[in-house]
């Protein structure tokens, strides 16, 4: 139990509860506020995942802008508590709930078992900590073969190959480790490897993984077309939204 673990479980709890409240609350205002909460919590979780800029963007864009828009619209409409039951019993409702539950089961199952299986499959070659430190977990249940092969192909060779010795050498070279002769524990080794492989695979040893610089490098080089396309999409969305929502004769139209 590290502080990160505790934070994760706390955040996860809040996120799931608020997500449930989003859909099971009859008052849309509360739904929107709970969704904002859920998004903020996810943003906080991104901080723990070293995605600082994305975290802040998540809070600014989702919680600060998109959800404000929702809240404003809901409040402006003055939507009241819905009188209709959300979980009214009917065959269709049952089918919907069952389908969602089944989907949930599938997804959770694949997420939990699948990744564990991948890790065990690669355990022979993987340096500790590259995918997760959680390597001792036994497999129970059937392993979907496709997921193993898919993930095995996808996993980048360069992130797997660094050994602790190499990682330490690399970090010494770039001055990341202040005491090169210090005897490191296994856990610290794992962290070093993670850091080294993350930076090495980008070819930019100076910047920390997840920093704004690395992210913006990717955004403005590899994804520059997508970036431009998305900006065009935003423009189109703005025009479309204005055209849809305005009343005839503009906002100052009388009558």
């Amino acid at each position, binding site marked *: *139990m590290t502080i990160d673990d505790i934070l994760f479980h706390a955040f996860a709890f809040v996120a799931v509860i608020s997500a449930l409240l989003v859909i099971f609350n009859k008052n849309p205002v509360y739904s929107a*506020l709970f969704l*904002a909460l859920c998004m903020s919590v996810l943003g906080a979780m991104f901080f723990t995942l070293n995605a600082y*800029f994305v975290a802040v963007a998540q*809070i600014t864009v989702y*919680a600060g802008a998109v959800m404000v828009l929702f809240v*404003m619209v809901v409040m402006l409409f003055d939507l009241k508590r819905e009188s209709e039951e959300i979980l009214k019993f009917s065959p269709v409702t049952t089918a919907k709930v069952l389908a969602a539950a089944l989907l949930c089961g599938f997804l959770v199952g694949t997420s939990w078992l699948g990744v564990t299986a991948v890790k065990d499959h690669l355990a022979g070659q993987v340096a500790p900590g590259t995918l997760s430190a959680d390597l001792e977990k036994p497999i129970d249940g059937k392993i979907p073969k496709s997921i193993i092969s898919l993930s095995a192909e996808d996993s980048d060779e360069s992130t797997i190959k660094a050994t602790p010795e190499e990682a330490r050498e690399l970090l010494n070279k770039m001055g990341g480790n202040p005491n090169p002769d210090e005897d490191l524990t296994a856990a610290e080794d794992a962290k070093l490897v993670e850091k080294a492989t993350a930076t090495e695979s980008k070819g930019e040893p100076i910047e920390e993984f997840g920093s704004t610089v690395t992210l913006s490098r990717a955004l403005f080089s590899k994804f520059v077309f997508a970036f431009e396309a998305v900006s065009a999409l935003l423009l189109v969305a703005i025009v479309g939204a204005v055209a849809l929502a305005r009343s005839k004769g503009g906002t100052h139209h009388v009558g």
Partner: protein
Amino acid sequence: MSGWAKLWIGTDMGNGLLEIIVNTIKIALIFFAVVSTVPLLVWVERRGSAFMQNRLGPNRVGPLGLLQLAADAVKFIFKEPFVPDAADKVLYFMAPAMCLLPAMLTFAAIPLSTPFTVMGHTFKMQVADINVGIIYIFAVASLGVYGILAAGWSSANKYSLLGALRASSQMISYEVAMGLSIIGILMKYKTFDLTKMIWAQTGPFNFIWQGHIIQPLSWLPNWGIFFQPLAFILFFTAGFAETNRLPFDLPEGEAELVAGYHTEYGGFKFNMFFMGEYGHMMTSSALITILFFGGYALPWSGGGPVQVQEFWMSHSSWLSQVIPLATGEAASVLAMLTHLICFSIKMGFFLFVYIWVRWTLPRFRYDQLMDLGWKTMLPWSLANLGATTALLFFARYNPL
């Protein structure tokens, strides 16, 4: 050792218990500092406005009327809590907290001074050292809208709702101009980290042109305002709109909306809105100081303990006798105190400007406000951004 302490210390949780305790103390300190600055500001506001309007202001209770603050606080706390009948109770009670919380959270990221070392432990004068500090502040500040919206809606009052909608659309609109206005200076500093920004503003005025450091006007401090005056004006103006203060206090325009979103609030709940507003004001002033006026750093000087010693030795005859004695930890404490004072002076000036402007300028009309935000400030921000980008590009400021 108790169970909890074992849990904290037994894990690889940073530096363990000490950090937890220090952080808790810092959080409490900052909170109380902000909260206790508010009455002071109120006093300044009331006295200042009185002098501007050629009257006296509160001067009966205590010396210079300073105890009036305490009296007001007591009044706020002991007022009868009143809840409108049609109000959405939960949100009605939560809204003031939702307003105050972002103000506090933003102030948590402000570096107040240089770190200092006592007994081998280094303490940062900042609750949370976030490497994306400036956008963190923007992000959290944007959450302040929820409090206002919740307050307006839950009061079940048309004036409240209209005020809330006005406030929130105003805040969202000016956020855009505000965010865009500082991108130019962020490009100059090449960081989101507030501390690094301050360090980038130390020393005399200089800049990089084609790979050479040029110091044309070394009698100026190396402050951001000299590089981006337009950005300063835009940011400062948007700051008024973000804090909902005059001349942009449309949400609570008493002639039209009674008191806007807090029409139905009274007592301590109203006080919390009040504190939230002043908290925003303080964050805003602190940000202006950090972005454009060198933050806590002494002007013309470097930011380290040695430079601080040099500063005192050259500016004060009696301190020059004592200062050389301060070495190591003592020097760092001295630097911290010096910088804290420096920061307080700069920030205090802008807080005063906020008050000054409030009692000087009349209120805008709502469409004028929106026009100013979208049709004037946004284009100017964009123009500033484009010009800065071009200039930095041709100056080869950031060689790749």
